[in-house]
Structure formats: structure tokens, C-alpha cells
């Protein structure tokens, strides 16, 4: 525990770096998680899900 404290929060600049690094990691994790949730809730309704049908159809027409 003490080692963890010394590693993370001993100095102010240390803590600032840890906070910004964790903010970066948190944002990435949060964004990917929320995007996955959104895609999961709208499965089969987005353009990227149904694109294959129409693009193939266009190619067949040509």
C-alpha cells in the first residue's frame, strides 16, 4: 500500500501525470464501451450493418 502511494501520489506532478494518464485511459475505455453499447442497441439498423446488401445489389446491376 505504501509503495503504491509512493509510486502514484507522492509528488504533485506525479499525481497530475497519473490523473491525466488515467483520464486518457478512462476516455478511451468509456468511448469504446459506449459505442459498443450503441451498436448493440441498434443492431441491424445502421448503414454499416445493411451496407453489404445494397453495395452487392449495385454491383450486380452493373
Amino acid at each position, binding site marked *: 500500500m505504501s509503495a503504491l502511494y509512493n509510486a502514484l501520489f507522492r509528488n504533485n506532478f506525479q499525481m497530475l501525470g497519473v*490523473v*491525466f494518464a488515467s483520464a*486518457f485511459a*478512462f476516455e478511451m475505455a468509456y468511448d469504446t464501451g459506449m459505442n459498443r453499447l450503441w451498436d448493440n442497441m441498434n443492431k441491424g439498423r445502421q448503414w454499416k450493418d445493411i451496407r453489404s446488401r445494397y453495395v452487392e445489389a449495385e454491383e450486380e446491376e452493373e
Partner: protein
Amino acid sequence: MASLNIASRTLARGVSRSCTRLNVARALSTSAQLNDAAASSGSYSSPFKGEPKSTKIPDFGHYLNKGSANTSLLFQYFMVGTMGAITAAGAKSTVQEFLKNMSASADVLAMAKVEVDLNAIPEGKNVIIKWRGKPVFIRHRTSEEIDEANKIDIASLRDPQADEDRVQKPEWLVMLGVCTHLGCVPIGEAGDYGGWFCPCHGSHYDISGRIRKGPAPLNLEVPTYEFPEEDKLVIG
């Protein structure tokens, strides 16, 4: 009259003040009598009866921190740091979304560039395409036309500009088809100089799109364009 009034008012005030004082005094005296009565009835017990016991300091050992001081510091700074991290991420994404909002949307970007296949344009022919709502002239010039454009004394022009400054490749002349006079669309392969002629007010442009005769003040404008491949032109 006025002085009398004031005098009577001050008198009245004095009387009322003395009355309230009297009332307060009476109230105090009555409450004291009541207290005395309660004490004399014998039901009163002092809260300080077991006084020696109450001065003993209780044992707080159960509540004391068993670990080192850094354990609780770690927890406190962890909470503060987590809050800071979430706030920083939120602030960053707020600013980012606002800035994203200001950038051009996908449909605007899709209209901003036009790609032309130059193989489809034979030598000595004009092509007019639409770019950002405006016509763009593309002419595949012959070598005679290039020579003709280079032969002209630049100093004699109204808007002096050399032919090399107006083209990237001499055989391809690309310019906006908007007359610099009042914005009509000039007609190709017409006019006194073998170039373009504006039917609205009679401006004549030569084979390099430079103004030669008529009311227009400037040469036809050249848009930004590039040749990403040998036979491909991208305007915009």
C-alpha cells in the same frame, strides 16, 4: 403646535418603554417562582451526579486506524484523482465535440472536390463541369494554342499575367467559367481572340482565359487543382 406634538410623542414613548420593562421584570419573577416550586417538590436530579466517572476518557482504540498513514492517504488521493480524471475527460470531450461541430460535415466535404478523367477530353476540346455550384472550364489545348498564348506581350494586357502562371501543365487550361465582369458564363471557342466570349456585355477572353476586350477587369479565375495521376484532374 408642532413642538407640543413632538413633546407628547416622546412622553408616550417613554411610558410604553417603562411598561414593557415592568412586564419583563414581572415575567422573570414568575418563572423564578415556578422553578423554586419544582425544586422543592423533590423530583429534580442533577445530571452531574456521577461526576468522577464522566471524566474518564473512553477507549477510542476500536476506531483508530490500524494500518499506516499512507493507506488512508492513498484512498483519499485515489478518490480525488478519480474525480479529477473523470472531470478532465469530460472537459476534453466537451471541447472536442464543440470544435467537431464547427468543422465541415461529410456532405460538404464530398462536394468540395471534383475528379475529372482527362482521357475523355480530346485535344482542342472544351469541357464544362460543375464544381461548388460554379462552372469550370477545362480545355485540352493544342500546341499551336499554347504558342499563341505565350506569344502575347504581357505588358499590353489589362490584367498582366503570363500563361505559365495560369496553368500547371500547358496543355490543360483549368479555370472558373464565371465572367469577371458581372458573373455570366462565357461561351467557349468564340470571340475575337479564339478563346471565350461573354454574351452579356461582350467581354473577349483569349486562349489562356485572359481579358482582352470588353468591360471585364480581370482574367478568368483559376481554381486550385492538381494532377494526382497522369490522366486525372482533381479540382478543389
